[in-house]
């Protein structure tokens, strides 16, 4: 028995690698190893006052800090029975849109595009394909502008609060968001063409899972038609070779992310994104995980269109900027949000003083862990013996990268 070690995935967030086990000349097993150290977030928030919790949870991940703070706020509000008005819901959605733009642009243009053009990174790629890199950076910077405006800072802002926001956006800021999202559509549409050309890689998931609304929700939905709370059908297990736990849906491997979102919720898309989705639907329904990149490109179009819609709506009605009072009570609540890389869950119980007594967080990369192993296994089976070891490792990395893994997020999945 021999092993091919992918020592550390590059061009992904965090520290992880893989081991492909070969026995008698055949690929026997693929293990995804997460060696980013444990971060014990659920212990960190235990006993903490609810008001400070979203700021702490944001620190789980820099690429998707707002997904965490919004999921956290929603879980806490549900535990207290707090309902927020449309304005706050729209602004939170806008915050998540900023995160999608920043994260998808980072992933597609700076991390994946170098694979399509055969470079080690985007800086080296920029010498010949500077325009593409620049378009990506422009979308990413715009996403960060929204993150800063609504979230309070590009990374780890603390403006998203239970009951509302610390500060509300001005008319000028909303106008800028409305105008820029229109202007950047051209770039986003071009990216769809670029990523539609990527080869099929990895496995096909038996089930897809997503939240019931496009960017957040009240429940999870699955491709077998089920609508459920995560604990009803998703089970977790610990692995001896990884700091991330693995999840199964009804005992089977499943996938979360852009591709599952499009396939489950394609009818919720905005007009141009919907047309692009229809154009590529046949290809996307082939289900290979590398199509997650194309799905993300279509989502760039969706989020830009939706940002324009939301900014327009808020400008028309005027931003009142009023927070809802939050009365702590003993309770339990779950926040379901679509992080850029897939469904994310924050589940809390609180005491009557508003302190956290129980916390469970499951991140998309933890959900996808089993699917990533399956994909590496299938791809390795196809490729082993067909190419040099360095090319083989490169292909394996491309498969892992298609999940847009966020390893920092995945290392603290826990029930207490």
């Amino acid at each position: 028995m021999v092993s091919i070690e992918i020592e550390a995935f590059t061009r992904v967030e965090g520290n992880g690698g893989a081991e492909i086990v070969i026995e008698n000349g055949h690929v026997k097993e693929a293990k995804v190893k997460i060696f980013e150290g444990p971060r014990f977030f659920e212990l960190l928030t235990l006993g903490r006052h609810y008001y400070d919790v979203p700021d702490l949870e944001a620190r789980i991940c820099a690429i998707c800090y707002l997904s965490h703070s919004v999921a956290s706020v929603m879980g806490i509000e549900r535990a207290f029975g707090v309902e927020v008005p449309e304005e706050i819901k729209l602004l939170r959605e806008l915050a998540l849109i900023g995160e999608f733009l920043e994260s998808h642009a980072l992933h597609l243009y700076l991390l994946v595009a170098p694979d399509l053009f055969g470079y080690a990174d985007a800086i080296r790629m920029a010498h010949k394909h500077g325009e593409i890199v620049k378009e990506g950076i422009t979308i990413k910077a715009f996403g960060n502008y929204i993150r800063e405006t609504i979230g309070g800072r590009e990374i780890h802002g603390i403006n998203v609060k239970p009951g509302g926001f610390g500060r509300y956006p001005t008319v000028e800021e909303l106008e800028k968001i409305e105008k820029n999202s229109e202007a950047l559509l051209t770039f986003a549409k071009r990216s769809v063409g670029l990523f539609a050309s990527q080869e099929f890689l990895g496995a096909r998931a038996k089930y897809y899972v997503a939240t019931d609304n496009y960017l957040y929700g009240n429940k999870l939905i699955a491709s077998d038609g089920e609508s459920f709370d995560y604990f009803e059908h998703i089970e977790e297990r610990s692995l001896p070779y990884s700091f991330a736990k693995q999840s199964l849906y009804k005992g089977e491997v499943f996938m979360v992310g852009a591709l599952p979102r499009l396939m489950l919720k394609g009818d919720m898309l905005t007009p141009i994104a919907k047309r692009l989705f229809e154009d590529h639907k046949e290809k996307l329904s082939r289900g290979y995980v590398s199509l997650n990149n194309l799905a993300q490109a279509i989502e760039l179009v969706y989020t830009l269109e939706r940002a324009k819609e939301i900014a327009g709506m808020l400008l028309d009605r005027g931003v009142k900027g009023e927070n809802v009072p939050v009365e702590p009570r003993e309770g339990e609540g779950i926040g379901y949000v679509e992080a850029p890389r897939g469904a994310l869950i924050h589940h809390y119980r609180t005491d009557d003083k508003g302190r956290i007594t129980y916390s469970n967080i499951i991140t998309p990369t933890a959900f996808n862990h089993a699917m990533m192993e399956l994909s590496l296994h299938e791809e390795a089976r196809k490729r082993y013996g067909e190419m040099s070891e360095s090319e083989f490792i490169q292909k394996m990395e491309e498969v892992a990268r298609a999940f847009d893994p966020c390893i920092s997020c995945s290392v603290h999945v826990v029930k207490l």
Partner: protein
Amino acid sequence: MLKLGVFELTDCGGCALNILFLYEKLFDVVKFYEIKEFHMASSFKEHDHLDVAIVTGTVSTQRDLELLKHARSHSNYLIALGTCATHGSVQGGVEGKIREKLEKVYGTKANPMKALDSKPITEYVAVDYALPGCPYDKDEIYQVLMNIANGVEPPKKDYPVCIECKLNEYECVLVKKGIPCLGPITLGGCNAICVKSGLGCIGCRGPLPKDANPAGEFEILKELGYDEEYIRKKFKTFARGELRW
């Protein structure tokens, strides 16, 4: 050309990501620096002696520790970047023995992945420059790298967040609104960005090393009606160990 390596230990990825958020300025950086290692951004990696090593994150595993030692022994100038690296940040603040924490999270005391109690890199190696912040302001790392490229020792900040708050003419949230704000005892450099949102500083750049009066802050928060446990937890969020007051 100076040789630069970026090494990520256990963290949220933000301190490495923030370097990418320099956008066009990153192209200025690469005029002076050849990037030899930066695994979040590049598949290119070359083992070489480095002029400057940037290390982010806490030492939370044996692997982190080995990577840190490698970075230290292969570099002339080492920058501890971000509050994880300088103070331990949020994971460093989680109390308890590592095996007990592992048992609570993974259901077993077994430690096959060799996890360590999370500590800042400053507890293991000497660092040439410490730039805290969760995250730091991205222009700070740009300035530090440019200073080094020009042979100038980058200046160290030594003032509280309050100074920047006053310069921006923000209303004092602690005095005027009674919001718990750690600005008076927290190292500045963030341009008081959270106070800009009308919110209290949560102390993400770690405690101000000297001239701060945490005991005074503690009393003020108590007078505002916050209980001692709440205040203690708030003080310790980003900095490992007890603050002495």
